[in-house]
């Protein structure tokens, strides 16, 4: 017996060594590695403490949120929570979490561990309270409110798999905010192990596990075979940092990388003419426009504002200044749900503009001012000054004489947000959570309680019917109903014309044709990469 058992041990060990050396999933079949080129390095991978795109790109493959965006959409679907209910008053959100899900470090995912992680977003007494940390960018107060102005959400662990949030005011967009990559759930064990800062040791529940990050070179992630959403179809993702866009294109052509996170307009043709490559593009979750002072000067008259919209040739400017990298705007990004398909952008129609101006009592036009800034913005890659100059030239043709003044960005924002400016001002917005309220509400709503425009409603748009629609939409829990309300609001907004609605910067990516199942998401992140395969 004794001798036999020794032999058994020996044989087992030998077999095990062999299996380790030659077998295993890596050796059994060719490893499928997907390389994605990004232009800059991540600055940290702890969701609650960063806001930049590159960090988000990587984090969206590592983390799940309580709810996730549906593939290719900004609509909210199941995430770590399988289902949820909202109280009739729209204030209490109860989430039923999945069973049997583990973080990449083995920590079980349940109401307690999720609450442990989110506690650092809302509890000032938590030693890792994010809002108290210096040098971090966080969406925590955006999503959960803040203690300082008494708007913070209350969180309760109801039972092992039930988590409840109670908000001070009804807010349906809370769900969209929870789905953001910036609210991905980190293993509380990791946060503890790394002394509140696991930003270079991220541990999530998502389709890919963090392996390593080499500064300014790459980030490696391996497939999580136990992913609750199904085993990823590639074995490894490498985010390769390549700052030069020409180099990125070259690497894609040589199959050294398979996906480019962004493509400059000058390379569109090159990607389109290459049969091995595919160009993905859709209007981005941004809006660019020229705000008008809705409460001052000739712009008080809606007809004048509409005339301004008719006077500017958006398509010519898109082709001429943006190299075709934008989509004309009717007031709301087309990729957002709640977008009214029956509303199209104002056409270029000088005669109509003149007629409207005459009707409003300005047959000979008028003189006014325009504020611009020079620097490029995410929603305006060419900067505000050039757009201003192009718009100025079009307005001259309908008798509007515009004097342009350029300000440095800080001074510009100060004037634009805090002073009762009159005339035009270049403005824009990049979406945060993919909820229509984040555009229609933030940018154009009147704060009824405070009796003034909301902070970013810089054009001071005020239409009680519009405000009612937005308030109702925030209080409605039924997604279909919300969608209808926003569609109506979209129509009103278009007709009110508080801005000259210009365009939406397109989201453009390129991939090799053997990359299958890849979908752009309006939020730009690399969500649902478990669905992507290499053939």
């Amino acid at each position, binding site marked *: 017996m004794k001798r036999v058992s020794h032999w058994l041990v020996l044989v087992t060990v030998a077999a095990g060594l062999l299996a380790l050396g030659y077998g295993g999933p890596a050796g059994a079949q060719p490893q499928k590695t997907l390389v994605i080129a990004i232009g800059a390095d991540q600055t940290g991978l702890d969701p609650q403490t960063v806001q930049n795109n590159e960090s988000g790109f990587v984090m969206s493959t590592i983390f799940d949120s309580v709810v996730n965006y549906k593939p290719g959409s900004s609509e909210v679907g199941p995430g770590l929570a399988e289902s949820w209910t909202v109280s009739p008053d729209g204030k209490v959100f109860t989430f039923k979490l999945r069973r049997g899900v583990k973080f990449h470090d083995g920590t079980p995912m349940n109401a307690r561990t999720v609450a442990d992680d989110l506690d650092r977003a809302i509890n000032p007494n938590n030693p890792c309270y994010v809002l108290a940390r210096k040098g971090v960018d966080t969406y925590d107060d955006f999503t959960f409110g803040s203690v300082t102005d008494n708007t913070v959400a209350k969180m309760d662990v109801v039972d092992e798999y039930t988590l409840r949030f109670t908000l001070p005011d009804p807010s349906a967009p809370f769900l969209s905010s929870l789905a953001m990559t910036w609210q991905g759930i980190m293993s509380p064990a990791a946060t503890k192990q790394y002394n509140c800062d696991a930003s270079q040791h991220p541990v999530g529940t998502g389709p890919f596990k963090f392996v390593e990050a080499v500064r300014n070179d790459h980030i490696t992630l391996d497939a999580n075979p136990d992913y609750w959403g199904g085993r990823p179809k590639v074995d490894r993702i490498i985010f390769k940092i390549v700052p030069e866009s020409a180099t990125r294109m070259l690497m894609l052509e040589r199959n050294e990388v398979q996906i480019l996170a962004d493509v400059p307009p000058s390379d569109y043709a090159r990607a389109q003419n290459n049969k091995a490559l595919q160009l993905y593009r859709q209007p981005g979750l941004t809006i660019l426009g020229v705000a008008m002072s809705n409460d001052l000067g000739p712009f008080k008259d809606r007809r004048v504002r509409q005339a301004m919209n008719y006077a500017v*040739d958006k398509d*010519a*400017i898109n*082709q*001429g*200044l943006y190299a075709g990298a934008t989509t004309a705007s009717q007031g709301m990004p087309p990729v957002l749900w709640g977008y009214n398909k029956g509303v199209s952008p104002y056409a270029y129609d000088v005669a109509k503009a003149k007629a409207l101006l005459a009707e409003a009592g300005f047959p000979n036009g008028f003189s006014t001012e325009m504020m611009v800034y*020079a620097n490029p913005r995410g929603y305006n890659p060419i900067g505000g*000054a*050039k757009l*201003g*100059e*192009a718009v*100025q*030239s079009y307005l001259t043709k309908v008798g509007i004489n515009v*004097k*342009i*003044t*350029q300000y440095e960005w800080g001074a510009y924002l100060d004037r634009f947000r805090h002073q009762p400016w009159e005339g035009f001002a270049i403005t824009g917005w990049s979406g945060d959570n993919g909820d229509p309220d984040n555009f229609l509400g933030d940018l154009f709503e009147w704060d009824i309680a405070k009796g003034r425009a909301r902070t970013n409603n810089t054009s001071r748009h005020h239409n009680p019917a519009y405000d009612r629609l937005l308030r109702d939409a925030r209080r409605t829990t039924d997604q279909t109903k919300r969608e209808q309300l926003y569609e109506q609001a979209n129509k009103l907004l278009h007709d009110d014309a508080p801005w000259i609605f210009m365009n939406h910067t397109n989201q453009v990516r390129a991939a090799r044709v053997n990359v299958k199942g890849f979908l752009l998401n309006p939020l730009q992140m690399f969500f649902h990469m478990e669905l992507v395969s290499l053939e």
Partner: protein
Amino acid sequence: MATAGTVALRTSRRLAALSWRRLFAHSSFVAGAIIVTGVVAAAAFAPALAPFDPIEQAFTSQLLAPSRAHPFGTDEFGRDIFSRVIYGARIALVVGVVADGIAALLGVVLGVVSGYFGRRVDAFLMRTVDVLLAFPYLLLAMIVVAILGPSLINAMIAIGIVYTPQFARVVRGAVLQVKEEDFVEAARAVGAGSLRLLARHVLPNILSPIIVMATLTVGFMIVETAGLSFLGLGASPPTPEWGSMLATGRSFMLTAPWIATFPGLAILITVVGFNLIGDGLRDLLDPRLRGSR
């Protein structure tokens, strides 16, 4: 009467140096004069010379390389750069002359007061001038524009103010010299008051350094104002100002170098023209100023 005669004699002797014959014998003056005449002609006949409206945008003909239709090419708004450069001459000349006028006027007042009254007034004014001279020109101009608000007129005022100390320095030196001359002493002896002394005897005799200084600085004024416009503190769009054209062209240096090249050349040529004239005048009128800029 004898005194007045002396003054007249001295003044006419200096200005006699400005005779056409001597001027045209001076090669750098002639070269400068030809260039500046060209620029003035371009400015005066801009509507006739320019083939296109300088501010008309055409998104169908953007970033075209120089060709027969567009000798200097087009910019990113499809505007004809040749037409813009021609119209830009008007602005450059106005800017140069107005800013220079402001600097000369303020500088002469300060310099004369400082040099003539001397002592504490002089000490105070010249220390102030020293402080101003210690500032980089452009920085000082930016401060002034920041206070006045960005516009072409304010840019001219700013540049004028910035160059005032230089004029004040030169004028003060000349006044110090002239006020010790016998004819001034003589005028004072016959009972002339300060105002009369300054107006009739001192000013006419410091005219030549002022003229030299003024022609020498016109070029710098044009460059500095272009610099302000380049930074977005000067001309507002769509004004065809050379400095702001440079600023626009900068981002197209690799793909459409003509956008920045031609306004840059225009600035260069105009400034060289004015400087050559200034050099010539200096040689003829006031050789002692050589090297003092």
